[in-house]
């Protein structure tokens, strides 16, 4: 890695004692010698293991649940179903008033995705919990499922989630989050070329080294200590407090070094049910995802579809951009309504375009619920935007890098979501990339600056 100190030197105070120094990490000896303690390194006498009975169907009504055989299995201590959860229907962003509550801790009457938790089994050993889980009999009536966002939005599509009543999240702005800037139709009318293209992505896994999990210990004084690898301590505590209808003062969450998160550990999935198990049995409980659960049960990055329509002039100026973004939340909201909204603010990318129209939808399907992941709401949008930029440049016979200089945002430019640009540095990044990659551009672009003239 190289630091290019020549850029923005006038804005920076160098020569500090600790900042800007590549000090060795104080925790790295522990990591490399295997001394760092993770939550799962804690073992407590009498600790129970929790395993979930999961839905084998993408969408089904639950006719009946029979746990009688599982209860007789040696080592089983407690079996939990929906009726045991004090506030079973929840949604994590209710903490910032983004409702409605739309997800069950344990399925109640219906499952909406393959892998959904239905019954929790607590047993003396992991093996006993697993074997007993296999003996739980759930009688399902399979329902039609929908796996495609466009299909889900058509009239007559199977309704995925009754708590929403339609297969999209209803914002205060309506069926999508909207950004309106300038007059996009007038922009298209004046454009020399119009290009409309569609981009799609698949869900992907966060792939942390350490799988999601927690260990809960009843402290004997009505308090519970939850050792967890959540990315957000109080966020998880507060949600657990709601689900368990237990004052937050009864909960003590302890984190530490986490073995990778990438956004996969900001859902609140393992902690509430493990605390409930500890409360009802009076014993420590651990609930740790297997690698299979981490990859197929925990929320992936959402599948997305992005449709971009651009109006561009022969001289390289983009005069209008219309983006319709679809985020596949899967069966439940989790963080997806936020991600779709974050996407609305991110378009049209780091470019100054006078006429912009953005609609972003959060859509429900019977896929695995998606949620936050590194680049949440932005990564797939950037893929779409930057491939589109390449196509536009070639459409008008211009160098792709020079084309970006022409449209790059600079300090003071008004963005589509009505915020002035501050601290821009796109131009300088492109100038340095031009040098580093030996990708020459015309001298006038190398002379540009993110600073506005006279500023």
């Amino acid at each position: 890695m190289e630091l290019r100190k020549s850029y923005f030197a006038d804005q920076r105070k160098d020569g500090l004692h600790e900042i800007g120094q590549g000090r060795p990490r104080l925790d790295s000896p522990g990591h490399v010698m295997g001394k760092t303690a993770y939550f799962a390194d804690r073992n407590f006498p009498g600790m129970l293991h929790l395993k979930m009975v999961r839905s084998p169907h993408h969408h089904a009504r639950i006719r009946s649940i029979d746990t009688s055989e599982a209860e007789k299995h040696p080592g089983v201590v407690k079996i939990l179903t929906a009726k045991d959860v004090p506030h079973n229907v929840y949604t994590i962003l209710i903490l910032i008033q983004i409702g409605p509550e739309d997800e069950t801790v344990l399925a109640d009457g219906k499952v909406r995705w393959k892998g959904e938790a239905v019954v929790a089994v607590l047993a003396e050993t992991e093996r006993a919990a697993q074997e007993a889980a296999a003996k739980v009999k759930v009688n399902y009536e399979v329902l039609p499922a929908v796996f495609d966002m466009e299909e889900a939005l058509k009239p007559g599509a199977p309704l995925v989630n009754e708590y929403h009543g339609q297969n999209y999240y209803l914002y205060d702005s309506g069926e999508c989050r909207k950004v309106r800037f300038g007059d996009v139709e007038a922009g298209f009318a004046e454009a020399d070329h119009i290009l409309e293209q569609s981009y799609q992505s698949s869900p992907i896994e966060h792939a942390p080294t350490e799988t999601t999990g927690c260990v809960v210990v009843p402290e004997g004084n009505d308090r519970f200590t939850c050792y967890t690898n959540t990315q957000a301590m109080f966020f998880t505590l507060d949600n657990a407090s709601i689900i368990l209808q237990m004052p937050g003062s009864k909960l003590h969450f302890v984190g530490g070094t986490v073995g990778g998160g990438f956004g996969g550990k900001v859902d609140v999935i393992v902690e509430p049910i493990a605390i409930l198990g500890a409360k009802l049995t009076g014993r420590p409980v651990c609930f740790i995802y297997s690698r299979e659960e981490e990859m197929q049960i925990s929320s992936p990055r959402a599948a997305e579809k992005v449709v971009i329509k651009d109006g561009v002039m022969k001289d390289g100026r983009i005069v209008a951009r219309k983006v319709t973004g679809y985020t596949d939340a899967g069966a439940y909201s989790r963080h997806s309504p936020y991600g779709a909204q974050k996407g609305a603010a991110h378009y049209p990318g780091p470019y100054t375009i006078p006429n912009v129209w953005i609609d972003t939808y959060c859509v429900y399907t019977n896929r695995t619920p998606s949620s936050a992941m590194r680049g949440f709401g932005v990564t797939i949008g950037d893929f779409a935007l930057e491939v589109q930029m390449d196509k536009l440049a070639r459409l008008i016979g211009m160098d792709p890098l020079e084309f970006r200089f022409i449209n790059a945002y600079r300090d003071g430019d008004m963005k589509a979501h009505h915020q002035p640009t501050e601290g821009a540095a796109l131009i300088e990044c492109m100038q340095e990339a031009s040098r580093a990659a030996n990708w020459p551009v015309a001298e006038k672009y190398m002379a540009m600056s993110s600073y506005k003239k006279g500023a």
Partner: protein
Amino acid sequence: MAIRRGSGVAAINYPTGMNLGGDPTQALVHSTPTGNFMVTLSSVDLGQGLKQIMAQICAETIGVPTDRVIIDTADTDTGPHCMGTFASRGTHRAGNAVIQAAKEARQVMLEVAAEELEVNASDLETDGEGNILVKGAPQKSISIFDVALSAHFKRGRSISGRGMFLIPRSYPEKETGAMKPSTCYAHACTVAEVEVDDETGEVTVLTVKNVFEIGRALNPKMVEQQLVGGSWMGISHALYETTEPYYPNRDHGGTDFNQYLMPGPGDLAETEIIVLERPSADGPYGAKGPGEMCANPQIPAVANAIFDAVGVRIDTLPITPERILRALKAQAAS
């Protein structure tokens, strides 16, 4: 049939924080009689090194070496509130809270030192090595250890500080979408060079040259580790990863690292990282949040390089050999 080479570019920006939900983080700092400083937080270190960065920020602000700062974090009984480690917010939000707390603690420390040295606190400075000196008369000095002892046992002062950083919640305007979703923006431009085998559809990423503008590299070694890792993740996202390889059929999703495709060490491109620093107005020592941004530009850069190599556009991720071959076949047919 041939191996074809191509180059592609992408340029992006990325927001720091999550103002659409309100974005607070707090920190507490206090000294112990050892002369060490404790920073108490509830922020989570995901392995990226949040604790180390908070220690360096606190050390710089108070004026002590980093190894004199201890980070106690991720405990809801002892730590003040933090929204969490996500949205590229950890360094920026928690760092600002630590600065505010450390400034308050530093002020008390200088006041105690001033009493011991019988000068005004405003005439004192720190040498960054654990001493407080009189400006212009460095022979007149006191160690921070002695100041801590004096504060505890003689002067009855608590060398401590409280820090709070809050970005108030922004509510998007319904009709126009006017909103302030984040604070500062990090930037990047990536050029990727690939080889595509037009017989097998296989892509080899030869080089990735990443230029990142991150506000301020608080610890350049850690910046490098995060940016190189992110660049690798971006390539993986572009070419390999999916939890639903046979979508819309949901069967046969990967359930372990043998089945879930990611590049191995032999698949890693030659990676170059260049960092620019345009300090953000509201960041801790100018830092922005590059943690998420650094995995994004490689994806379109690789896609564009593949087009440059073989003349087909794959607009669906991941860009698998199968998709490339189907596109080449369609291209040949038309």
